[in-house]
């Protein structure tokens, strides 16, 4: 059950442009991979919470990975032991883990957050998975790639060629395994999701049904009441669903990719 928690930050690990904030959480905080927490990010006239995917769930702790993107995330990234966070969660519909065949996880930038948690869970459940993680340059997330490589089969794609595959995460993913994966899980910038969806559709008409994406949309409430986080869906035509409560994870064939592409 989602609830409001005031959690103590018990650790912070800085990874380049992002920081992992480890918080003490009670046992009843049971996130599913792909779910998020809605975090109050300080005062300064900021009245809305910010959504962050669950990055990890350990013994008595859970963590988020915060990339600085603006004032709220910048405030959050600077928290550390001694601070408390006001969070709502876990929220939203996470990834569907049931699938036949291999799993391919495609992350763009901080989109690694929910996919890392997913990968851990999949491995715990005895599944195999392959992670393609794209970023601008190899140093962007500090030592995080090395940390994650110890946990799972993580391959990097760097746009500037400074490490791993030289190019995008989508290119890398398609090279690695575009036909055999039973399920492709993705999280990243909208452009990345658009290009991935297009490539999946190229493969075969059912490609989008094998895709699950976690979308980023601006949110107010995070709990399904404001309709602020509208995502264009295929059915009924012209309709929207709520990223926060119907998502943030959608099956590729649930979304209206044409209208997704038209959004700025």
């Amino acid at each position, binding site marked *: *059950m*989602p*609830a*409001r928690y005031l959690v103590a930050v018990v650790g912070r690990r800085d990874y380049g442009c992002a920081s992992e904030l480890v918080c003490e959480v009670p046992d009843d905080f049971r996130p599913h991979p792909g779910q998020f927490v809605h975090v*109050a990010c300080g005062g300064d*006239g*900021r*009245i*809305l*919470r910010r959504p962050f995917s669950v990055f990890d769930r350990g013994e008595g702790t859970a963590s988020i990975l915060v990339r600085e993107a603006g004032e709220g995330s910048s405030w959050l990234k600077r928290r550390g032991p001694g601070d408390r966070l006001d969070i*709502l969660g876990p929220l939203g519909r996470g990834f569907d883990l049931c699938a036949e065949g291999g799993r391919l996880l495609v992350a763009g930038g901080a989109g690694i957050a929910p996919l890392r948690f997913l990968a851990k869970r999949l491995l715990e459940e005895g599944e195999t998975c392959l992670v393609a993680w794209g970023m601008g340059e190899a140093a962007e997330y500090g030592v995080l790639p090395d940390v994650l490589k110890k946990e799972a089969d993580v391959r990097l794609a760097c746009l500037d060629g400074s490490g791993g595959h030289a190019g995008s995460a989508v290119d890398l993913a398609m090279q690695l395994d575009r036909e055999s994966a039973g399920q492709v899980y993705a999280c990243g910038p909208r452009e990345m999701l658009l290009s991935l969806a297009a490539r999946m559709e190229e493969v075969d008409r059912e490609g989008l049904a094998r895709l699950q994406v976690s979308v980023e*949309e*601006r*949110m*107010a*409430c*995070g*709990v*399904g*009441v*404001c*309709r*602020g*986080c*509208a*995502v*264009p869906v295929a059915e009924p035509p*012209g*309709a*929207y669903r709520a990223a926060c*409560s119907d998502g943030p994870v959608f099956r590729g064939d649930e979304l209206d990719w044409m*209208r997704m592409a*038209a*959004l*700025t």
Partner: protein
Amino acid sequence: MDAHGGVDLRVEISGISLQNPVLACSGTFGNGREMSAWMDIRRLGGVMTKAVTLDPCAGNPPPRVWETPSGMLNAIGLENKGLERFLEEDLPWLHDMGVPVWVNVAGFTAAEYVEVAREVSRAKIASALELNISCPNVKKGGLHFSADESEAERLVSAVKGAVDIPVYVKLSPRTGDLRGFAGAMVRAGADGISLINTMPAMAVDVETARPRLGNLTGGLSGPAIHPVAVQMVWEVAQEVDVPIIGMGGIWGWRDAVEMLMVGADAVAVGTLNFTDPTATLGVVEGIAAFMRRKGYRRVGELVDLARRGRSGAAG
């Protein structure tokens, strides 16, 4: 009432008994169902539903929300399932919760308002209607009525003629002659006034020169507009004799008490629900604690106190 330690929070407006003066604002509480995962909505004074239109409405293209200093913009665009599903799914559910319900009615033409209002009234399980003639986020209907007093009057009398439950009219902060407008609504038959709706507002990303909202403009809500709402309630309370539900940036019990003191009979909490889905109940508790501390026994003692206090002092 014992639940609040000797303080009686009950309020009766337009013949509707509220167990306390705290409602949830239209559009910030869904139709109650999602919020019931977070709180016991039966403990509210009342719920004002998300706007209901005749036909299902997909709403505006995203992005639909943007944060501003101590406020937020929204341009949801009246997304809702339409009258039929509202009457089937949402209104009965709310009714079963035993909480008074103000159904927020919107339309793109006057005829649509009237039809939605008539059907809701016919269902016999809504406490009242709230005519949303102040939504800044639709091209037709909505705010258009707030700019034209005589059209608004015609709308209110048409709706009144079609229903047998109380009709509240929700005012926009973009109203020129506020007192005149409020008075005209009451003369046209309004049983109560609610205010304020969001303020027309806008933000642009200077890096791209693009508006932050898919709808280009939106409505401002939250603490930023609270002082505006207080002033408007103060002004309208001097003009009309019907009940007033005050809303706009209420961010805790203190803002709610302030609203009562300038003349609101009840208050509604909006954007704060997004920051804290249990906030409404905190406001109820806070009002009760304030009343206990100050020795007030009934909510009515607070209503209009800022004016009565002064005239008392002068007299």
